């Protein structure tokens, strides 16, 4: 594709004609590139290949090397033409030279003639990541982000960062490194434990509230008791005839080994049988927090006694009979 480059020494005789020849050579090169590209396009459309699937155009290393050689030679020619030193001819000089030699009236700056290093014109392509047998070179290739994971783990990046924080005088970099750290809060400190209250007879008591699925319960747990439980003024055995609900009432006491030591009085409204039992369980667990040590609070939390259950009845959607059930499918 490269036509013979005119000898720079023959510049002297007719610079104007030589200039026109240089311009023609350069434009020819641009044109031939465009023609080639168009040829490539037409040939592929003739053969009906999927152009989009082929991806961006691939340039071989030799092609790019040739382009770089031609660019350098052209740069020296330009320098000679402009009367400057070829060795110290910068890109700004090239731009000025092209703007002088090929004045263009086009408004779009990107459409004007340009002479740049081929690395800036031809898009950078990834070298092929695998060998001839199809086996990738990097051992972390299949993670998708091989350089990221290799940085993170092979160079022990995270360990390095943590070590930096352990050194003295780390306060300078601490702020920067903390930006990449996420603070994990210790969950047990989020529990609000109210202090014990004392009523007229110097007996310690504590209140708690709990909700489960539209049922709300408020309880008062008193110390020095014998395990009596009163729900809405009625004994728990009469209010909850089902064993499972009574087990739920006992759960917080049984977990803390305080079955016969407290008295409980509670009020429940709303919900159904099981929801009221769950609400009372949460309320008693919260009330018992004031009587109990920190480790026991943490074990209660890990047993699931202190989390309010977020499960509620799912709403019905329009076009369906229930939350999930659809109307009977009719063919006609």
């Amino acid at each position, binding site marked *: 594709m490269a036509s013979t480059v005119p000898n720079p020494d023959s510049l002297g005789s007719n610079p104007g004609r030589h200039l026109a020849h240089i311009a023609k050579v350069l434009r020819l090169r641009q044109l031939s590139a465009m023609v080639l590209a168009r040829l490539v396009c037409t040939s592929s459309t003739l053969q009906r290949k999927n152009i989009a699937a082929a991806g961006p155009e691939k340039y071989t290393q030799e092609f790019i090397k040739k382009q770089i050689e031609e660019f350098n030679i052209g740069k020296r020619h330009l320098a000679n033409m402009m009367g400057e030193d070829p060795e110290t001819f910068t890109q700004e000089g090239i731009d000025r030279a092209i703007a002088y030699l090929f004045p263009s009236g086009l408004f779009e700056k990107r459409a004007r003639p340009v002479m740049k290093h081929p690395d800036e014109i031809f898009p950078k392509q990834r070298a092929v990541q695998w060998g001839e047998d199809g086996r990738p070179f990097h051992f972390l290739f299949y993670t998708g982000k091989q350089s990221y994971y290799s940085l993170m783990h092979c160079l022990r990046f995270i360990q390095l960062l943590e070590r930096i924080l352990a050194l003295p005088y780390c306060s300078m970099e601490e702020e920067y490194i903390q930006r990449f750290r996420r603070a994990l809060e*210790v969950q047990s400190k989020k529990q609000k434990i109210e202090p014990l209250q004392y009523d007229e007879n110097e007996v310690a008591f504590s209140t708690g509230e709990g909700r489960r699925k539209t049922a709300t319960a408020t309880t008062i747990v008193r110390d020095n008791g014998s395990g009596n439980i009163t729900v809405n003024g009625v004994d728990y055995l009469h209010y909850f005839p089902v064993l499972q609900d009574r087990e739920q009432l*006992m*759960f917080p006491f*049984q977990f803390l080994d305080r079955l016969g030591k407290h008295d409980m009085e509670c009020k429940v409204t709303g919900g159904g049988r099981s929801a009221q039992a769950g609400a009372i369980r949460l309320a008693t667990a919260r009330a018992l927090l004031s009587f109990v040590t920190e480790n026991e609070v943490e*074990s209660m939390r*890990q*047993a699931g*006694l202190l*989390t309010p259950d977020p499960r*509620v009845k799912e709403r019905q959607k329009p076009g369906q009979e229930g939350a999930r059930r659809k109307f009977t499918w009719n063919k006609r």
Partner: protein
Amino acid sequence: VLPVRWTRYNPYYLEPEPSREVYRIPVTELTDEQKAAQELKAVRPIKATPSGLTSSVFSDPTVSKFVNMMMEDGDKVLARSIITQTFESMKRKQVEKYHKAPATEKEGIECNPYTIFHQALENCKPIIGLISIQKGGKYYQVPTPLTDSRRRFLAMKWLITECRDNKHRRTHMYEKLSQELLAAFMNEGNVIKRKHDMHKMAEANRAFAHYRWW
């Protein structure tokens, strides 16, 4: 549009551990895995315990799952009463057998209905399962390994369907269940037979094992 399984809980929440023994182990005797798990639990929020489980010695998660699977139309009271009646009848049968047996065999007879239930369930669990895979227009039964939860589910499902379908008209559910559980404890009965059938089918279809791509 495929239905997607979701919960009201954030996926960040961890499962609760209601039993008390875990919290009684002193800090020094924990293994490394348990220590790592404890540290993780200290930082993550935890879900609420479901209403079928408690920390008492009488509550069993396997029995609770079985009760839920037995339940129809949300009637947990009825399902739980059937299970308690089953255990009661199993205990009665075993105690009768115990008193009738000679002194040498008395130690071999298991009377605790919970251990019988667990052992029977263990005997009913299949080791390998079959999956229907479509290939080339036909459906093949391909042998595949099963997870623990899937095995437990299949064992319970077979027990319940067996008791619902193949019983004499006038027998109660608890009678039939206790018979099946005692038979499964002895590795006899229809449920064990069904498990062996499944294993034989898997062995017969060994050639299709490579149809599975996961």
